């Protein structure tokens, strides 16, 4: 089984001397270590909105991500939701990641145990490109990853792993299958009836 490829975004705060040049998870505020993979840790606690079944971090035999919890390192299967999020906040940058270990698959993305960045994506807007050029140069050097145009990101990432996006469910098809099953059941009953009745 080959590693999973996903797409996500990070915040890079140019005004923070401590985190400058480092990728930061926008929700958990975790700093991603350069040249290493990041491993998931459950940070759910009582009262936290995202905590569902959570609180498994005290159980030694359980690892993050837990299917019933909201923990893990998040990534989308596609680039579209990633780019949507980038437009909402400045100094938010998108990119591709490689995921392995325990991976919980959702229809829209995945939650992984171990993740490392593969590439960053150059902002689409020329104005943003100009404003962030120096910062992105620092980040990509720090993590030893390339800065790619959005159109090249998927092709580059697929060199390292595969998408684990589930096949979309087809309710119309399922309905047809049910009708077909019912018809064939009726046919079987009819044939049985004929066989028994002569």
């Amino acid at each position, binding site marked *: 089984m080959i590693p999973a490829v996903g797409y996500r975004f990070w915040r890079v705060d140019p005004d923070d001397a401590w985190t400058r040049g480092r990728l930061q*998870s926008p929700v958990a505020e975790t700093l991603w270590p350069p040249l290493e993979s990041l491993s998931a840790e459950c940070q759910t606690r009582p009262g936290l909105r995202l905590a569902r079944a959570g609180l498994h971090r005290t159980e030694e035999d359980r690892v993050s991500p837990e299917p019933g919890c909201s923990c893990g390192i*998040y990534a989308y299967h596609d680039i579209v939701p990633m780019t949507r999020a980038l437009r909402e906040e400045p100094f938010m940058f998108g990119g591709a990641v490689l995921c*392995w270990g*325990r*991976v*919980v*698959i*959702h*229809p829209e993305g995945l939650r992984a145990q171990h993740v490392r960045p593969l590439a960053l994506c150059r902002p689409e807007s020329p104005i943003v490109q100009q404003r962030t050029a120096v910062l992105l140069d620092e980040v990509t050097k720090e993590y030893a*990853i390339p800065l790619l145009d959005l159109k090249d990101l998927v092709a580059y990432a697929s060199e390292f792993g595969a998408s684990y996006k589930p096949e979309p469910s087809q309710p119309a098809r399922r309905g047809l299958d049910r009708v077909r099953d019912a018809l064939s059941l009726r046919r079987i009953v009819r044939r049985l009836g004929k066989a028994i009745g002569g």
Partner: protein
Amino acid sequence: MGFTSKPVRVIEIPEPASEPLLAPEREPEPSRREEKVPATTPA
């Protein structure tokens, strides 16, 4: 970042084979010395 849908499956993926993030620096291979051809004297 958060998902609204329920998980559909859980998989275990082995760690990928480690690969260097940067190409290792290599010293240029020494070029072959040209062998001296012994001067032959006409018989």
